[in-house]
């Protein structure tokens, strides 16, 4: 239980090693980069985005929603500026008035793609807070995702992100966590009397985990196993498809994203799963729950649930019960962007906290308006962005402190890693805890 800090230290050095070990840019001519980015833009811009790109009035209000702008007051971090090359590309190539706009609209070049790498990977976590603010109703975060896709196609994703993506694309592992590593952890848990069904031929629920949980938050996986066992459900982990994280979604590589999702979808079909359970990972939820069907091209033959959704359901059905553990402890629930704003899971975690007798004190920004942890969507893997991240962390710290709660609870291991690193750097002592671990601790024994 105290191993988190040590695990985190190991994980941090691993993260830094990725950055140092990664190659530079993919070898490619600049013309080829521009061409590939253009093709990615052409593929990804749909009618909805076209409306958004046509509608932006350059009011700049989105800057005020962006934690990166707020923390630095650097106007380059204005969300509308972050998709400016995409807007220009669109005006030249797809807009209904492209022939009129083209002579007055500068072409996107490779230098700009390089320049925007920092803006859309280091200084944007795709949190979507600006989407909620835009007076024109533009889904800005969606447009910045397309920027990432274009830059990734041009071989210009940051080296860390690129390296992680390649690892998942080729070997299927992440941070070196492969099937063998998973088996090792499962047998470790078994020695602690925690039964983890692995590779059952048939199961109702396919449970996923993430490399971060295997490497850092082993307790979270243990907690998940205890919850599943207590609920009496038929479930399994699969060594063929246990990784919920989807680096393709983060890097902007649609093929990699589809491949990672496809592994899970195929395996769930193979074991006849009716439910796929996503561990504490916001972007994994988005990748499968909201984008899985589109990546695979078919509606999913199973439902996708976040743990808090599953536990709430089991609680309502009476299959799980909490101890009356009310001890006056107060916590602040941090909404992970991709579980909350991008996922729609706001109330289940809060219901669980309440059911466990914990007092939830929301930060001033919460639910759809919550500030991102500052490191989401792969941002925290980028070493050079550490100082920027730390500035953004101060916004979170201020909000958390204002609640006066005893601890921060979240439901995304990436948020948790990032907040813990920020706290450690800032020598901030507030515990940053996991919802699933808290739930597991508070379950009745029978």
């Amino acid at each position, binding site marked *: 239980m105290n191993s988190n800090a040590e695990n985190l230290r190991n994980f941090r050095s691993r993260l830094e090693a990725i950055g140092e070990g990664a190659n530079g840019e993919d070898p490619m001519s600049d013309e080829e980069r521009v061409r*590939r980015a253009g*093709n*990615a833009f*052409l*593929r990804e811009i749909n009618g909805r985005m076209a409306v958004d790109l046509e509608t932006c009035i350059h009011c700049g209000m989105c800057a005020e929603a962006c934690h990166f702008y707020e923390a630095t007051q650097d106007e380059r971090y204005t969300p509308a500026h972050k998709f400016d090359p995409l807007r220009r590309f669109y005006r030249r190539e*797809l*807009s*209904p008035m492209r022939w009129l706009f083209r002579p007055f609209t500068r072409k996107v070049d490779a230098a700009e793609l390089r320049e925007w790498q920092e803006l859309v990977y280091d200084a944007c976590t795709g949190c979507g807070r600006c989407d909620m603010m835009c007076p024109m109703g533009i889904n800005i975060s969606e447009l910045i995702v397309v920027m990432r896709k274009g830059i990734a196609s041009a071989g210009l994703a940051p080296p860390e992100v690129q390296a992680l993506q390649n690892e998942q694309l080729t070997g299927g592992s992440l941070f070196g966590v492969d099937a063998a590593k998973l088996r090792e952890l499962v047998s470790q848990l078994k020695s602690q009397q925690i039964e983890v069904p692995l590779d059952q031929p048939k199961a109702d629920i396919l449970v996923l985990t993430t490399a971060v949980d295997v490497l850092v938050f082993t307790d979270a996986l243990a907690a998940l196993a205890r919850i599943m066992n207590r609920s009496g459900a038929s479930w399994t982990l699969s060594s063929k498809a246990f990784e919920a994280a989807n680096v393709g979604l983060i890097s902007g590589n649609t093929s990699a994203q589809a491949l990672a999702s496809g592994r899970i979808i195929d395996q769930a079909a193979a074991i006849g799963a009716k439910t796929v359970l996503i561990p504490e990972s916001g972007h994994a939820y988005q990748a499968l729950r909201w984008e899985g069907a589109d990546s695979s091209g078919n509606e999913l033959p199973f439902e996708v649930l976040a743990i808090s959704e599953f536990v709430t359901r089991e609680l309502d059905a009476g299959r799980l019960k909490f101890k009356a553990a009310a001890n006056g402890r107060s916590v602040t629930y941090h909404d992970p962007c991709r579980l909350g704003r991008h996922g729609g899971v706001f109330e289940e975690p809060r219901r669980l906290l309440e059911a466990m007798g914990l007092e939830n004190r929301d930060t001033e920004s919460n639910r759809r308006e919550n500030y991102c942890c500052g490191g989401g969507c792969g941002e925290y893997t980028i070493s050079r962005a550490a100082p920027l991240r730390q500035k953004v962390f101060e916004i979170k710290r201020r909000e958390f402190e204002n609640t006066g709660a005893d601890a921060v609870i979240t439901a995304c291991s990436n948020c948790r890693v990032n907040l813990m690193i920020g706290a450690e750097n800032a020598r901030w002592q507030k515990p940053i805890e996991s919802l699933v671990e808290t739930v597991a601790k508070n379950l009745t024994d029978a």
Partner: protein
Amino acid sequence: MRKDQTLGAYLFSQGVSRRGFLKFCSATASLMALPPTMVGRVAAALENARRPSVIWLSFQECTGCTESLTRSHAPTVESLIFDAISLDYHHTLQAAAGHGAEAAREAAMEENAGEYLLVVDGSIPIGNPAYSTIAGISNLDMLKESAANAAAIIAVGTCAAYGGIPHANPNPTGAVSVSDIIKDKPIINVSGCPPIPVVITGVLAHFLTFGSIPELDELGRPKAFFGQSIHDRCYRRPFYERGQFAKSFDDEGARQGWCLYELGCKGPTTYNACATLKWNEGTSFPIGSGHGCIGCSEPDFWDKGSFYRPIAAGLWGSRDALLGAAAAGAAIGIGTALAARSKKKRANAAKETEST
């Protein structure tokens, strides 16, 4: 009435008192927007002025201008001053007819070469000169001939000044104004359909007083009478400022005397002295009678849409043009969207060949 008699001598011989004469002079001065200090000069000039010879040519016209002039109630200073000029040729008013009439014109032109005033009402057909002839002479030839030795020309009425109603679309006779033909003489346009009689006499008085033509606006009209718009001097203007408009000719607003802007009044874009001098001995003017100004002293007033169409309303052709534009716009939009789709399809196909 001898030609060398001065105007003063003539008027006094007609029984006009000095007091009456000075009253006329100050009225004339104020009419011409001259300062009161100029009254003495006007009086001196008029008193000693020689009665000039005036030749009045009527071309494509309706005689409304002459009717307007003669409708002024006698005895008025206007009528007096008309007695004070030597009107040597005027179809409607002269007693002579046929060859005698033409002989009078020729004699006046010869005797007063370079000094006579030429007054023209009506437009000149140049499409086919035969549309209007006098004594076998086309209007065009008669105008050129009469203008050659004139001291100045007064184009009375909108037809002479700007072509007027004969000039209205489609202008079958090819009607043009005096100034379209005569380029080398001073021309004073006294526009209006018809013009205000006092304005005609005022212009004559100015010519008699100063021996020159008055200051003109860019349309060749004396600024003293055409310097301000009907709207600027309209007694209903306060209703305009307050946004109180009659909506029909018989509603409560119309009865209350509210602004006629919404009923198509052209007062704001029409320059004339109707609102100040008024008509029929200063009795009233169209707006005073409850009808909007039709803009008759402006060029092409007949072709500026309905008299009842407000100035703020456009003069554009038809709603059909907009429907056509809508259809064309939608069609182009669909076309560009389809082209964009096929562009996206090509990009999707190209994806297979890209490794990343």
